[in-house]
């Protein structure tokens, strides 16, 4: 009896221990699988893979610069567009209307926004946003592609708003109440307290939030794939059709029959994995540091 329960005890401890190990191995497995499958491409192109402009499956020349540029442009633009909105939501929920009907309405809406699948954003973008952008491009005298970096950024910005707003709220809530009260007791208006006390205090947290949102934007695939225009060339303006790292994988992976082509796509995946991982770890690190300092 006693022995039995001791055995079960050990079995239990082993089970939970190995489950933890499995997660660790999973991550390492992902990294090394990507790395080994990229080797043909890494050997063939070396660092030129990052700096070359040509992506040509016919001649077998692969370089990822156009997609790196497309990814960075789309994500940064999306961030720039979304920041005023997500900051406003964060301020409204964290500062202006804690509790109450307005805040629960807004919270509900933001949660819904976060719940809509990516493919549906893309679908909507394709049928609503693309014609609108095409119209604007015509008015501006540009080539009316409709699809392109700008369109993708717009959709992407809507998609990251819920995420960055909730991070922003989290960070603003970390500002100690005593500090805000001190500022009010000196006669500051809400605007002044936000500008002089809350934002300076939350500065590094907000920066971390932006990093984490960037991490989100970099890897977003479907919606972007559907509206970015799938071009292999280096973008020349924010209205150019382009491809992000994620969208080129989504578009071409099943077509990639020869080893080098497939391996080049996997190397793009590896790069994407590394970039998002670094950005996420940096962001989380800062946020954790800030929250520890507060406590």
């Amino acid at each position, binding site marked *: 009896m006693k022995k039995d329960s001791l055995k079960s005890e050990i079995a239990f401890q082993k089970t939970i221990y190995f489950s933890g190990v499995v997660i660790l191995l999973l991550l390492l497995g992902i990294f090394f699988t990507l790395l080994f499958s990229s080797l043909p491409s890494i050997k063939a192109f070396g660092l030129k893979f990052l700096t070359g402009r040509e992506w040509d499956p016919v001649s077998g020349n692969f370089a990822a610069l156009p997609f790196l540029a497309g990814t960075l442009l789309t994500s940064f633009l999306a961030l720039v567009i979304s920041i005023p909105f997500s900051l406003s939501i964060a301020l409204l929920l964290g500062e202006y209307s804690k*509790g109450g009907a307005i805040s629960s309405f807004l919270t509900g809406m933001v949660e819904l926004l976060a719940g809509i699948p990516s493919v549906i954003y893309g679908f909507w973008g394709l049928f609503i946003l693309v014609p609108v952008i095409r119209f604007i491009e015509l008015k501006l005298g540009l080539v009316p592609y409709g699809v392109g970096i700008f369109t993708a950024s717009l959709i992407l910005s809507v998609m990251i708003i819920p995420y960055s707003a909730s991070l922003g709220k989290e960070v603003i809530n970390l500002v100690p109440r*005593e*500090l805000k009260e*001190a500022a*009010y007791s*000196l*006669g*500051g208006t809400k605007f002044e307290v936000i500008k002089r006390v809350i934002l300076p205090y939350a500065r590094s947290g907000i920066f971390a939030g932006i990093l984490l949102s960037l991490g989100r934007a970099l890897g977003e695939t479907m919606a972007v794939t559907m509206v970015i225009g799938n071009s292999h060339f280096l973008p020349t303006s924010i209205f150019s059709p382009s491809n992000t790292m994620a969208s080129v994988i989504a578009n071409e992976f099943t077509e990639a029959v020869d080893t080098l082509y497939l391996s080049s796509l996997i190397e793009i995946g590896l790069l994407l994995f590394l970039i998002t991982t670094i950005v996420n770890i940096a962001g989380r690190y800062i946020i954790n540091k800030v929250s520890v300092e507060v406590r």
Partner: protein
Amino acid sequence: MENHILKIENLSAYFGKNRILKDINLRISREKVTAVMGPSGCGKTTLIRCINRMHELVPEAKVSGKIFLYEENIYDLHPIILRRKIGMVFQKPNPFPTMSIYDNVIAGYKLNGIKISRSEQDKIVEESLKKAALWEEVKDGLYRTGTFLSGGQQQRLCIARALAMNPEIILLDEPTSALDPKATQRIEELIVELKKTVTIILVTHNIAQAARVSDFTAFLYLGELVEYGHTEKLFTVPEDKRTEEYLTGKFG
């Protein structure tokens, strides 16, 4: 009792449906120290937060009644103007961690967007720190952040910050409860010194402290003002039985 700076009339305060203060009537004398005492949770903090309208910052918080600063009802003033006339020092020292000592002292001016010349700023900083008896200790490190200071020094920095705005009244909410006896003594000496130029309302748990520094004492119990008068009289011949029990340590 003449020369009143503040008249509180039928003041009631609520958190949601809870009535925390019940029909308080109180007259505060100018350039004197008035102590507010009472057991924990009786509404002392709430009372002084009504006086500079910080109470309203809490969602669901309400007040009724009137408070006159001189002849003016404070509820007719905009809070940002009122709060400049009635400064506040909190239980826990709360200097702004993102600002230097110097900037902390003139934080009120910065926050209010008041533009003053550098030399004027220097003057205000020096005077306020001197009034708060902190000048000698920090004058060589004015541009360091205030978070390196000891608790007592931080609290005096917060007093200097409130003094810098030249307020009519300063509200002190248990300013020494987070400090050691030595730092407490310095703050008490400071309070006595300050009342030459500014009216002070001091919330305290410490009966001896009230006896040492205050001219008048108000005793609150369960949101009611039980007794109010000259400190000496209230401490020696209290009229109400509850006051007597509190002073002799029977509860609270």
